[in-house]
């Protein structure tokens, strides 16, 4: 049933907490610390320092699994750097890079099952590609060919959303439809720290909790909303605390620790799939580059701060861990680098190709069938283009 009374949902949450042998308060708010499994040097932290509260089991991912995740991480970093280069070369209009946030990007995709959905923001291109969307289709939006380059239903990935948090409600709707049909789909809904101030953030979390929908809200707290630091967005002790007000568990995780991210997000996805309702995961990370190529980050943050986060880099941390485990030899590193280079080459080839847009596409998709008014306007443009073509061929003949 889609609706439930307050009483019913409280009982259900209680039951979830009981399953872990902890109180409802401890289930809802294990936020006294951020969960961190890998230290910055790539060593596993002592269990008592991992920040996991009693009763919360975070399954350590298998080593093979982590190697695949590392490969995605390296590819993600390469994609970010390649795209920024393509912007500098004028091949793309804009690219909001997730450089520094790649562990979050990769984990967001790898925590999901085949039939699960993701609703990303404009900064989540790496997550979108990791979920399986074709790299060049992903970049269509930023090249300026069209406002979206892939079929969301084919990949189960919403079009990267530019307005803040409006997509969280679409995630809620997709989950609601799935639940009404008795499917066990989970939906990951992504947003940033600044976006948590938007009204739709509130409405989406509340709807998801009231209807007990299988949605995992994944907030990448990269410390800045363009130029405005987190302290100017909220007075809450953490963004994870916001979940509690909706009757939803909120967790914090080190967003540059791929091992911890996979552990926390996979647990959240499993709980959502089991019918325990939505969860919120706040990942602490850092946007290493400016908001976009049009932004100048030196106007609002100190280089010392950037350097500090450089030392926490998710890629080097994961590489150190895997090397320490003897899971990465030179051959393996070479293979992964080649696979990243292949994706970068595909991006270069795809985005360097000159594809002339069809002006008539303006009218094709406004409605399922163009209205008479759109047909008239389409004919007007066709006539205008035909006359321009005739003029230029006349000129050429002269």
């Amino acid at each position: 049933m889609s609706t439930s009374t307050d009483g019913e949902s409280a009982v259900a949450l209680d039951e979830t907490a009981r399953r872990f042998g902890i109180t409802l308060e401890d289930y809802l708010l294990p936020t006294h610390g951020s969960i961190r499994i890998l230290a910055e040097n790539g060593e596993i932290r002592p269990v008592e320092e991992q920040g996991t509260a009693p009763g919360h089991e975070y399954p350590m991912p298998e080593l093979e699994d982590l190697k695949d995740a590392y490969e995605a991480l390296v590819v993600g970093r390469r994609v970010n750097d390649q795209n920024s280069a393509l912007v500098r070369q004028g091949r793309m209009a804009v690219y909001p890079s997730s450089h520094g946030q790649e562990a979050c990007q990769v984990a967001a995709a790898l925590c999901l099952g085949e039939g699960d959905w993701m609703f990303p923001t404009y900064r989540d291109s790496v997550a979108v590609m990791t979920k399986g969307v074709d790299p060049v289709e992903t970049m269509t939006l930023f090249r300026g060919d069209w406002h979206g380059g892939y079929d969301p239903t084919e990949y189960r990935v919403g079009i990267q959303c530019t307005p803040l948090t409006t997509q969280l409600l679409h995630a809620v709707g997709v989950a609601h439809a799935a639940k009404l049909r008795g499917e066990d789909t989970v939906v990951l809904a992504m947003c940033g720290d600044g976006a948590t101030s938007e009204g739709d953030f509130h409405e989406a979390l509340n709807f998801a909790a009231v209807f007990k929908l299988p949605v995992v809200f994944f907030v990448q707290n990269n410390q800045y909303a363009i130029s405005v630091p987190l302290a100017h967005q909220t007075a809450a002790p953490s963004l994870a605390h916001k979940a509690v007000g909706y009757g939803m568990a909120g967790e914090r995780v080190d967003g540059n620790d791929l091992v911890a991210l996979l552990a926390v997000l996979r647990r959240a996805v499993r709980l959502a799939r089991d019918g325990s309702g939505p969860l919120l995961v706040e990942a602490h990370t850092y946007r290493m580059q400016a908001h976009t190529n049009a932004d100048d980050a030196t106007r609002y943050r100190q280089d010392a701060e950037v350097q500090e986060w450089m030392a926490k880099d998710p890629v080097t941390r994961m590489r150190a861990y895997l090397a320490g485990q003897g899971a990465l030899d030179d051959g393996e590193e070479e293979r992964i680098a080649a696979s990243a280079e292949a994706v970068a080459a595909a991006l270069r080839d795809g985005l360097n190709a000159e594809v002339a847009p069809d002006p008539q596409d303006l009218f094709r998709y406004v409605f399922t069938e163009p209205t008479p008014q759109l047909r008239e306007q389409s004919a007007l443009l066709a006539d205008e283009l035909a006359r321009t073509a005739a003029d230029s061929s006349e000129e050429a003949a002269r």
Partner: protein
Amino acid sequence: MTVTTSSDANGNVSTATAQAVRETARESERQSRPAAPVTLAKALNTALADAMEASGDVVLFGEDIGTLGGVFRITDGLTARFGEHRCFDTPLAESGIVGMAVGMAMNGMRPVVEMQFDAFAYPALEQIFSHVAKMHNRTRGAVRLPMVIRIPYAGGIGGVEHHCDSSESYYAHTPGLKVYAPSTVADAYRMLREAIDSDDPVVFLEPKKLYWSKDAVDLDALRAAYDGGSRSGAPGTPHGAAQRAAQRTEGRAVVAREGTDATLIAYGPSVPTALAAAEAAAAEGRSLEVVDVRTIVPLDDETLCASVRKTGRAVVIAETPGFASVASEITARVQERCFHSLAAPVLRVTGFDVPYPAPKLEEYFLPSVDRILDAVDDLQWEA
């Protein structure tokens, strides 16, 4: 087709013309075969129920629409009949309602959501403008959003502020939205069924002053015509499909009253006022044609212009403030297309460009029969 207005809805109709309306209604009742009068609200409720029966993908949600049946009772009985998973209350959040509907429509459902009042839909405008209207275009047609946003709209009921706005121009101005505004009981049924069956998102504007107006229509015949003679929800027969196509309303304005001297163009709540004006004009020897626009988007330029070319004069009537409005757009289009047939500039009778007034002042704001007749008088009749 004749529309009678309820006693509390005809405050802007002069006593003489209200009398004329009543007489016409009686005349029409005498001529038609006996059919029990049906309210527009009942027609909408029946359309929702029939659509829910026809497809399990149709789900209804909004504020107070479940147990209560909606503040206007349009969803009355639907939760009891179809279950809480098909018709349910949401938390109080209009953006949430519309945004969730977008996601449900992306994932195979046909949501029909209710905004409690016109101005209460404004929190949802970002979802409507940025996503409902654009998703199909953004995805090059990969994602269709078959959803309906029902909005009780416009004034004439003595409502308080935020309960009487004519918001059609905002929606009509936004590419990607279809905008329907029925004015009769029969159209309310047909148009809501069409809106729910449409693969494009539809903003469905329900003139709240007409909710309790009654027409003598055979609702069962309408239902059978829409469902191809089958009331079981089974797909219609070829004959049924033809019947439905013949009654299609989208993009088809209708001549609600024939006339020869001038055309009154109206939609939604203004149609009964236009009909009353035509009736009053007839008593003075002037024959006015009334065209009911029915769907603002897509607009039926052809029917509008055919009437104006025939009569050579036109007045466009709408409750909305006239500046940059649907009425302005219709006026411009008619003028562009019918210039050489016109004996006078096309005039508008609309609400003034002021915020919707308090109940005691709304009669001065709303287009009235007298104001329409004054505009008709101004159509340069002297050669």
